[in-house]
Every structure is written in structure tokens, then in C-alpha cells.
């Protein structure tokens, strides 16, 4: 019963504890802070202008191009990159590949915050955001809409990821009993989360199915949902590799010696999964191309751009992943993951923005302000990640719960 007493005493001081944790840790004038703070402040000013004067005041969106960078990059690309969480929870909790256990928490945290901020970016893009509650409270269920499915899945998946991550919060606050309850929910949340991810990763692609006349035939196919799902696997894992190589430097004090040593094995393992998923993806792309009988389009200007995406940023990184695994070369894995991420950005932007109404004379190009707001959101997200990682047992293991 002694643990019970401790937790009661701890409950009283939790408020004080959180207040103390809110204070900054570490140096204030780091290069990252010096760059990110002005960007964030300017971004917030622009967001105020946007809600005051309307979307047209800071974006280049118009009647022909209703969706721009904020949807095409922040939401559609961002969610693909956040796919690492469902793939990794599948590997660790379903397939029981314990090797990857040490990176599960940081990946789920990244995924959760990505959804939180990209759903936030969606709010910026809504013309009438005060009505965002309508499809949730049930007074107007547009169940025939793919966006209805995507919106609900975003919301439910965020809850699932929060449950998956919540034991870390309980450990941080020292709430033993709550931690036990939350931990028992993990596997349910994982299964639910993987199911939701499958559907909304594909669903993001299905959003573009009705724009069949507007997207260049090399990118439009009825199989966009399937392609989006498959590519979210290696998009997410490439993000995990890329992000892991940064955080292992930035937060090196947080990572135990064993985890540091195991990290190369993890990276090479993920490279294998990426290679297989990319092979399946390329094969599917090829089938779609043959099925659509669009060979002759490849010799056009748009065909060249298509080949840049598919050969330059899918086939080449695929070969690089295979090479890296054969030679156990961690550096080339990182290069390959970076190329893969560029390929995902190209693919998502091609479908949503670049090859959308490709033949229009005055094609949409984002304003610097749209890019600036996007950067603002990314920087705020990094600030939150840094805050959490420096306080909660995300990368390090809590001494009390060494077997998380």
C-alpha cells in the first residue's frame, strides 16, 4: 500500500511540478531558437491577418485552385510522413519485433504531434472554421463524403496515438496506477490505430478521385488510394530514419549506451522494410501506367517530370536502400531516406497542386506568406517535441520503469 501513499502525495504536488517543468531547460540563444522565434512570430501575425481579412489576403488561392500548399503539403504530405507510427507499432506490438522497441515512443510522439499540427493547419485553411464541429456533433453527417471519413479518422487516430503515448506522460508525472491502466489500453489502441491509418492514408488519396478531369493523366488513376497507402509505409519509415538521425545527435544525452549501439541495426532493418514497400509501390505504379496505356505521355514535358519523380526519387532510393542493406552502410540509408522523402513531397504535391489543372495558363504558385505560415507550424511542432523529449521518458528510459 505504500505506493498508494506516494501517489497521493505526488498528486498534491503535480501542479507545482508541471509549473516547474514549463520553465525552459538549457540554453536560450541557440541557433535554432534564433531562427525559429522570428519565423514563429511572423507566422502568427500572418495567421491573424488571414482570419481578419480572409484567405485571399495572404494566399494565392483562387476560384480555379481552391486547395494549395496548406492542404497539399501540410496535410496531404505531412500525414504521409506521420505514417511511421502505425508501421512501427505494427512491427513492435503486433509482430513483437523487440529490436525496434526503443524508438516506438519517439515515433508515436512525432506522429501524434504531426496530426495535431496538420489538423491545426487544416483549420487555417477552412473558410468557416467555426462550423468544424458540425460533422462531429451529428447535426449534419455527410457520410457520402471521403472528407467526412478522413476528418473522423484524424480525430480518432489522434486519440489512439495519445493513448499509445500516454504511459510516458504517466511516468513523467509519477502516476503508477494510471500508468498501469493506460498501458493495458495500448494494444487496443494499436490495432484500432493501424486500421484507421490504413483507411485514412488511402482516404487522403481518395479525396482526389472526383477531380479526375483536372489531374494530369499520368498521376490520376482510380488506384490513387492504394498508392497513397503503400507509399505512406516508406514515407513514414524514411521520416523515422531521418528524424532519428537528427534526434540521436540533438538528444544524445537522453539515449542510453545500448540504444545508441542498437540504433544502426534499427536503421538497417527499417531500410529493408522501405525497400520492399517501395518495390511493391513501383510495381503498382508500373501496372497503372500500362493499364492506362499512357506510354506516349512519357515523352512529353510532363512525362519527364513524372520520370524525375518515379525514377529519381523512388527507383534510385530503392536501389540505394538495397545497396545499404547489403553493405550494412548506415550513411547511405540516411541519404536514401532523404531522397525518398523528397519523392513523397513531389508525389503528393504533383497530385494536389502541380499536375492539378496542369494546362491552366495562370497556375497557382504559393505566396511567400503561405510558405512562411507552413514553416511557422513546423517550428512550433519542433518546439513542442523538444519540450516533451527533454521532460518525459521518450528516448531515455525512466529508471523506475526500465522495461517500458
Amino acid at each position, binding site marked *: 500500500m505504500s*505506493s498508494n501513499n506516494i501517489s497521493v502525495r505526488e498528486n498534491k504536488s503535480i501542479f507545482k511540478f508541471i509549473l516547474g517543468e514549463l520553465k525552459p531547460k538549457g540554453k536560450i540563444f541557440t541557433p535554432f531558437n534564433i531562427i525559429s522565434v522570428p519565423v514563429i512570430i511572423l507566422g502568427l501575425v500572418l495567421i491573424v491577418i488571414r*482570419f*481578419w*481579412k*480572409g*484567405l*485571399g*489576403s495572404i*494566399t494565392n*488561392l*483562387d*476560384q*480555379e485552385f*481552391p*486547395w494549395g500548399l496548406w492542404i497539399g503539403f501540410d496535410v496531404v504530405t505531412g500525414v504521409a510522413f506521420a505514417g511511421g507510427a502505425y508501421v512501427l507499432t*505494427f512491427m513492435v*506490438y*503486433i*509482430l*513483437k519485433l*523487440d529490436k525496434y522497441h526503443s524508438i516506438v515512443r519517439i515515433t508515436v510522439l512525432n506522429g501524434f504531434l504531426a496530426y495535431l499540427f496538420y489538423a491545426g493547419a487544416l483549420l487555417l*485553411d*477552412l*473558410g*468557416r*472554421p467555426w*462550423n*468544424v464541429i*458540425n*460533422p462531429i456533433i451529428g*447535426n*449534419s453527417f*455527410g457520410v*457520402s*463524403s*471521403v*472528407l467526412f*471519413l478522413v476528418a473522423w479518422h484524424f480525430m480518432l487516430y489522434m486519440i489512439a496515438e495519445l493513448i499509445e503515448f500516454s504511459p510516458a506522460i504517466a511516468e513523467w508525472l509519477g502516476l503508477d496506477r494510471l500508468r*498501469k491502466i493506460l*498501458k493495458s489500453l495500448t*494494444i487496443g489502441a*494499436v*490495432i484500432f490505430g*493501424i*486500421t484507421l491509418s*490504413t*483507411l485514412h492514408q*488511402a482516404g487522403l488519396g*481518395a*479525396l*482526389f*478521385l*472526383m*477531380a*479526375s*478531369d*483536372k489531374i494530369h493523366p499520368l498521376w490520376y488513376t*482510380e488506384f490513387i488510394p492504394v498508392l497513397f497507402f503503400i507509399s505512406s509505409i516508406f514515407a513514414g519509415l524514411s521520416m523515422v530514419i531521418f528524424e532519428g538521425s537528427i534526434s540521436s545527435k540533438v538528444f544524445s544525452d537522453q539515449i542510453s549506451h545500448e540504444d545508441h549501439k542498437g540504433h544502426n541495426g534499427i536503421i538497417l532493418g527499417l531500410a529493408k522494410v522501405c525497400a520492399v514497400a517501395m518495390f511493391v509501390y513501383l510495381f503498382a505504379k508500373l501496372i497503372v501506367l500500362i493499364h492506362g496505356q499512357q506510354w506516349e505521355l512519357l515523352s512529353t514535358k510532363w512525362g519527364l517530370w513524372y520520370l524525375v519523380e518515379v525514377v529519381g526519387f523512388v527507383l534510385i532510393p530503392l536501389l540505394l536502400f538495397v545497396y545499404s542493406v547489403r553493405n550494412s552502410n548506415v550513411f547511405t540509408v540516411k541519404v536514401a531516406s532523404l531522397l525518398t522523402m523528397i519523392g513523397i513531397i513531389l508525389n503528393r504535391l504533383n497530385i494536389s497542386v502541380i499536375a492539378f489543372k496542369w494546362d491552366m495558363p495562370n497556375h497557382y504558385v504559393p505566396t511567400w506568406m503561405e510558405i512562411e505560415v507552413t514553416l511557422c507550424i513546423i517550428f512550433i511542432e519542433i518546439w513542442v517535441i523538444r519540450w516533451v523529449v527533454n521532460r518525459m521518458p521518450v528516448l531515455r528510459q525512466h529508471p523506475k*520503469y526500465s*522495461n517500458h
Partner: protein
Amino acid sequence: MGLNRRDFLKTIGAATATVATPRALKAKPKPGTEEFYSILFDANLCIGCRKCEWACNDQNDLPNQPFASFDDKSVFEEERNMTPDKYTVVNRYDVDEHDKPIYVKKQCMHCSQPACASACLTEAMKKTEEGPIIWRGNKCMGCRFCMLSCPFDIPKFEYDSANPRIAKCTMCYDRIVEGEKPACVSICPTEAIIFGKRSVLLDEAKRRIFTEPDKYVNSVFGDGEAGGTDWFYISPVPFDKIGFKKDMSLEPYNEPTKGFLYSVPFVFILWPALLLGLYNANNDKNQVSEGEGSNE
């Protein structure tokens, strides 16, 4: 016979009731809602007076100009498009093989199976029982998915407003439910646009083509385009010469989305079952490493 008059009436009554009840329970369709209302535009009859534009602005409280100013022909220099403040425009097309200029009115096509309404996650964009597609501001969250989905690029958005509307022709829904014709139809001096039930107008369009074959191309735009629309066009020249897209799908544009949505329940049943199966299959071999931490 043991059947007296009273019992006989009871039996008849009960029998009538069982037959009648299902019909009585079923909501009766409102008068005139069995079939969508439609409008037929005849490009041979339109004289480009643009009175329909004036009537539309007037009806929908849009910024308007004096009635006489609509005689100004200089607006036809450029092909115009709808804006949030203009639900309909008339354009002039000078087509080589036709001696006279052709005037064409543009507005929402009111598709029979609309992509915009399928896109809408709040049912703000709605196909009414009467046929017109209307927009409801108290539901709309301004995501503009309807604009992305519409094959005719009809819905317009107020980018310069903090409280923006989605703007488009409503086929004067308010007038239709009161039994009146849409404002543009009422004002048209040449009956270039006529209003009626969909099948009646489709027959009328085909009758005109059949009786005067050299005055029309042998096709009704909207009969099959986008799965059928509730605005029809008949014209003396091919439709791609008067501002329409050339190879419009004859399938409703929301068709591929349906396939995706039908697959959702299957994934929702299959995935958790498979994942749970895999989890259990792996579970017994790793029981030790799944231990619950060291807090006990």
C-alpha cells in the same frame, strides 16, 4: 353461415387496414417531387440580352446594375466566368461554321448525381428532392472540397471575406417550392430557357432536334454528361465550341469515390480481426519480454 353483418364488416375493415397501413405509413411524396425539375437552354433562341443576369442578381440580392445597362454588348469581348457575386453569365461565341453569333448562358448544371454534394462532409451542399442543389451556410465549414470536385468548376468562394460564402446558382429554390419559375426563366423574352420536369424537357429537346435536324447538332448536353444534369443545352454547333469541356465523363463524377467508401466497412472488420490474430499468434512466445515493468 355463421358470418353476420357485423363480423363481415370487421373482417373487411381489418383486411383493408392491413393493405392500407403500409401505404399510409410511407410518407407521401410532396406534390411534384417525383422527378427533378430542370431547365432547357436553346442556343438557337438566346439573343444575348442578359436580362437573366439582371433577374438573377435581383433575386439573389447580388450587386446589380440598372436594367438598361445590360444592353451593353462590350462585355462579350471576353469570355466571362461566374464570380461569388454573379451566379450566371451569358457569353458570346463566334463560331466559323455558323453565320450568327451564339449566346450561351452559364450557371450551375444541377447534376442529378452531384460530385459537390458527395464531397460535402456537412451536407451543406445538398441535392434537394425538387432537383436544385442548394448551399447552407450554417453547415458549411468552408473546406472548398466541393470546388475541387465539381467537374464544371461552378462553386465560387469569397476569398476576401472573413465570413466567406460558397456562391452558386440555386435554380431559385425558394421560388420553386412556392410554385414559381426561376427568375431567369421568368424574365427570358425569347423562351430560350424553359422550366419543367426533367423527362418532359428532355423529350422537348429531342423533339426540336428531330423536327429541325439542320438547326441542331444531334445531342442534348446534360442528357448523359456527368451522369446526367438538370440543365440541358441544345445547340447548332458542337458543345466544345461554346465553352463546354470536350470529353466529359458520362459516369457520375462521384462514382470512383463510392467504390472506395464501400471498401471501408470491410477493412474495419478484416483488419482488427487479422491484427488480433497475429498478435495472439505471437503472444505466447514472448511472454517474458512483455512483462509489466518493475513497479510491483
